[in-house]
């Protein structure tokens, strides 16, 4: 290193200081920009959300999995209710589509399902291009057909159906997808038709009764099958004898157990739907 300036002039120290502070300022600016882009929600929806859930009775899951209100059409096909989509004005003057409705005494929005990455699924976008019918996807219980719409006729034996787990007649489950045609990701749905649920709809009181009245039909209920703990898709209803899970919903990852016949009102902070 040849340095024309003598050490005593302090020039090297001065140049080092200038360069160092410039580098530090640059790194700080870049870091702030990254932090801004990561933490600033650029999407829509999200925030504090109240929803009706199947109760988490055991295991590490923080809260129950959200229910999906259902309807059964004249043909017997079962579909999930998606909140009504309206055009609303944004703060900047433009318009955007917003899904929101009052259902069973609660504000029902896609926020209910915006956790565990589902917030990025195409099916949760208000402008999703497709219908709301539940469809079999090939995976699931052994009795299921490999595809097509889920029809109530397939649950005719719901009060006698049995498999290796739980008592006969506590309900017949199915796994399906919802609003997942021509999307990158499929929303996993667990459908249960059960005489126990019919009894619960009769005996429930208060806001849960109002909700169940609106969200279930003929003993059929639907749940977004995404464990609130670490986002696994649980094995489902009647899939394990572990720790009394034979008549409940069992998640094989960390042994969370949900009771589908105990409906509770829960709240959580939903993620925003990413814009792109």
């Amino acid at each position, binding site marked *: 290193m040849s340095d024309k300036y003598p050490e005593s002039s302090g020039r090297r120290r001065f140049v080092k200081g200038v360069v160092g502070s410039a580098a530090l300022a640059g790194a700080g600016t870049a870091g702030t920009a990254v932090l801004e882009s990561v933490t600033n929600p650029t999407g829509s929806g999200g925030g504090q959300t109240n929803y009706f859930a199947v109760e988490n009775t055991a295991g590490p899951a923080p809260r129950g999995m959200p229910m999906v209100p259902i309807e059964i059409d004249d043909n017997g096909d079962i579909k999930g209710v998606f909140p009504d989509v309206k055009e609303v004005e944004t703060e900047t003057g433009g318009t955007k589509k917003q899904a929101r409705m009052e259902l069973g005494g609660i504000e029902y929005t896609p926020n209910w399902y915006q956790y565990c990455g589902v917030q990025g699924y195409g099916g949760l976008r208000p402008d999703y291009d497709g219908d709301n019918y539940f469809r079999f996807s090939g995976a699931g219980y052994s009795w299921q057909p490999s595809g097509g719409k889920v029809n109530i006729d397939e649950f005719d034996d719901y009060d006698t159906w049995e498999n290796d787990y739980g008592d006969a007649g506590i309900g017949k489950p199915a796994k399906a997808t919802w609003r997942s045609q021509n999307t990158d990701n499929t929303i996993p749905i667990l459908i249960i038709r059960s005489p126990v649920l019919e009894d619960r709809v009769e005996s429930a009181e208060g806001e849960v009764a109002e909700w169940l009245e609106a969200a279930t039909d003929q003993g059929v209920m639907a749940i977004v099958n995404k464990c609130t703990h670490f986002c696994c*898709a649980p094995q489902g209803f009647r899939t394990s004898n572990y*720790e009394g899970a034979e008549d409940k919903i069992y998640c094989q*990852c960390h042994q969370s157990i949900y009771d589908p016949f105990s409906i509770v009102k829960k709240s959580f902070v939903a993620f925003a739907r990413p814009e792109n």
Partner: protein
Amino acid sequence: MSDDQPTDEDARTDGTGIVSPDDETPTWRERKERTTGLSRLTYEYFERSRREDQDLRQESDYVERDVLAFPTWPHELVRNLAITSFFVGMILFLGATLPPHLGQPANPSTTPAVILPDWYLYWSFGLLKLSALNPELAILGGQKLLADRTFGVLANVVVVGFIAIVPFLNKGSARRPVEQPFWASVGVMGVVFAFTISAYSAKTHLPLNPHLSFDLAFLIPPMAGAVAYAILKTMREGYMYDLNKRYYKLRPPK
């Protein structure tokens, strides 16, 4: 030197020579046929090498050097290159013959029925499931100080930390378990605990009550350690006697 002692000029034929002259080195058959046995042979071997070393040092052109070792090039590098080439060749060979396995991309909408890591990580996976040991503190109103997942990670740190300090607690001078029954039984306990905690990690697939398998995971290792300690302690006297017998045969006390 008395008269009946053979002189250096006479070749001794009775097999008692300590260092044989080069042209009279006995064959291995001859050595085996001697009845003095292994101790004599060992003694001769070391004496012979000591003598050769001494001769070398007494030669006029012998120069004492500070460092006596193999040079890096070519000795070390040629050997290392040969080993490296072998393993690189094996990798290329296996890469060429076995088709690469690329599974389906992960599908977040389905989860496999069996959730377990590779078998050699079962012990660590079991340590993540120690939520039953995480105390609910009365001072926090029955709350846990640590989340169960943090507690599980800390359990891994504790176990790995203990294994790391064992070499500082015990230098490992014993060559056989009987020499240090205590430390041997600590080792037995650790190995058995690795197996029981591995079994506990698969508790959902065991035909046991999960609470029972949890209790067994912590009860079996100390029991195995105690049994190992008792056995080794009992064996020790006889074993050490046998060892000493061999040792003093080889090197008789002065």
